[in-house]
């Protein structure tokens, strides 16, 4: 037998295994945010009044609006998976794109929210913020770090779903093989769920 070129390796497909791997990865994401939730709870315990004061400065309306956007985007993501299961490729692509649009809408809101705060001098190292009490500085520090990291996850999600749209178009994701889209959906739901926790912690508990 020639040793010049050998047959390609076997094709391995295990949808349950793939989903299991994705779930494990999502656990690690939860723990990543868990480290910050831990800091939040300790600092809130120590600085209850300051956290109460600082939270009043956040715009609950924008936060609520963003929560609604993100929840809707989770729905559209789920519909896109249902559509591919029914072999309706175009509908699936439509809902994936809609998810991306909603995600970008979330980021636009975030941009206005952040830039308004930064404009008022409330940012790490900003004079306005440094004049406040230590608890408030910590609150806004956590606010920027946690919503910032969440925003980064939203952007990664946009790129990820963008790839999925492409794969759906190419026919890689199809009725009998859509585990990749499901995994992207799981990731997107996680991004949504983390926001569901961030929203009350920063905006609602005042």
């Amino acid at each position, binding site marked *: *037998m020639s*040793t*010049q*070129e*050998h047959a*390609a*390796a*076997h094709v*391995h497909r*295990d949808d*349950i*295994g*793939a989903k*299991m*791997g994705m779930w*494990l*990865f999502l*656990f*690690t*994401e939860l*723990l*990543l*945010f*868990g*480290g*910050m939730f*831990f*800091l939040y709870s*300790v*600092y809130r315990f*120590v*600085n209850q009044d300051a956290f109460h004061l600082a939270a009043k400065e956040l715009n609950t309306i924008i936060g609520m609006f963003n929560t609604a956007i993100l929840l809707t985007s989770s729905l559209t993501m789920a519909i896109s998976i249902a559509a591919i299961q029914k072999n309706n490729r175009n509908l699936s692509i439509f809902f994936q794109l809609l998810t991306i649009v909603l995600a970008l809408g979330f980021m636009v809101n975030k941009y206005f929210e952040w830039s308004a705060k930064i404009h008022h001098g409330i940012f*790490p*190292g900003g004079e306005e913020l440094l004049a406040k*009490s*230590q*608890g408030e*500085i*910590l609150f806004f*520090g*956590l606010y*920027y*770090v946690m919503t910032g*990291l969440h925003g980064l996850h939203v952007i990664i999600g946009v790129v990820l779903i963008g790839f999925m749209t492409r794969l759906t178009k190419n026919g890689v994701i199809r009725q009998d093989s859509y585990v990749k889209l499901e995994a992207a959906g799981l990731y997107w739901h996680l991004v949504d769920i983390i926001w569901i926790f961030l929203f009350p912690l920063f905006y609602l508990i005042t």
Partner: protein
Amino acid sequence: MSSEAISTNKNGYVSYLDYKGKHTGFLGWVLSTDHKRIGILYLIALMVFFAVGVTFGFLMRLELIAPGRTIMDPQTYNSIFTLHGVIMIFLFVIPGLPAVFGNFFLPIMIGAKDVAFPRLNLLSWYLYVAGGLLAILSILLPGGPADTGWTFYIPYSVRTGTNVMFTMFAAFILGFSSILTGLNFVTTIHRLRAPGMTWFKMPLFTWSLYATAWVQVLATPIIGITLLLVVIERWLGVGLFDPSLGGDPVLFQHLFWIYSHPAVYIMILPAMGIVSEIIPVFARRTIFGYKFIAFSSIAIALFGSLVWAHHMFTAGMSNTGQFIFSLLTMIVAIPSAIKVFNWTATLYKGSIELAPPMLYVLAFIFLFSIGGLTGIMQGVLSIDIQVHDTSFIVAHFHYVMFGGTGFGIFAALHYWLPKMFARMYNQKVAKVAFWLVFVGFNVLYFPMFVMGWLGMPRRYYDYLPEFQPYHLTSTVGSWILVLGLIIMFTNLIVSMRKGQTITKWNIWGGETLEWKVETPPTLENFDDIPVVTERPYEYRENDLAELEKEAK
């Protein structure tokens, strides 16, 4: 020649070393998704980093041979012990066994053709190399290498002008690589075991990798976020750990050790797995207490995750907290001791063959016991306050990590290298190297127990003259150790290229699946997935006559 001893080429099989797929040559390796090739890629990278780490350690010891300045200034010394720690911890002992031998042998041992996510596996290697290069880059950039110690304690790590950000970001990337390897292994073990390979027929190395993989998945994200927060802190000055802005530096220590203590078990568990593999083979006895060894791995992973704060007994903690963490620390000793007792019980009345892998394993038990028992001493609050931040601690964790994990890696190298490369090293030279390493190790680290007890602080550049005899002994030990290491690695590397060729499938007489495939294994390990009916270490029922026949 028995039917099993046919060379790989004769019956048309192509080994993974000779396989030529879409890419050939160098690309055939760095683009390969074959778990065995990835294991070897890790091995090469790991050995390079190990050599660098040893060199730094050697220079550090040389500086400490006499009080005052010997070969370097204090700043260089600080950087060198930091780099020694970072490289040895993040680039050598943590990834060591899972990445090299786990990758290579885990799928074979459970009767699978590859891991569950081969491409992710390759990505892990790239992340590992990227992290390593970034760490090295931090040495070369202006500002100089980090000088914080591998623990990056706040607030110094925020205030120092050195390239801490690079080093920390490197550690973050390495953490990512570790997580991906862990989740790959968990999925592989759950989904890809061969028919009949029930949980309690899995080899013990697989069990230890399973426990390790869970720790990797569950603990590593915490260090990820912690390091990221410090990077953000340096970059933007958010103040989450800065007391002047209301933050609490002790919280950094909590977050840091929530990962870094379990990481100790990421390091030691696979080594314990190796020991459990090698002892029955070279004592030719069924392993004593298979289930206890398997479950003690899980117990160590579980309890090991709950004891982080014993690193902070002196950092300000409530008495209740100290008591609880002291108690939990003691509890971890129980599953560790179960393993040691089971190994010695396996050796009892065994027909022991002192081949090189076995020598390293016996040294492992000896050194790990010293390391473990001194660990219990530190779990006792009163003793911990005496020895905290002294070289006693340094001796303790070198006995556990180097004497444990390091010797585990050496044992694995001597045990499996012939299988991986189909070439045998010179066993006599291997034994000489072993004795040099073993003696050098003890001469190097044992004096640290004594001087630490007498009050020699760790990490110090200079010391009182009364400690000099210990430092001198220790430095001489480092020379013997390095000599031994050079001989060992020269022997192994030469054997990979020029050693005596082996075609026999089962050179040591092992009962696990990796000894039932060709040497070296073929691309897909198994042409047909085997059906497993036997338990892995049933030497009593093993037909010794057949082994003797095969030996002819």
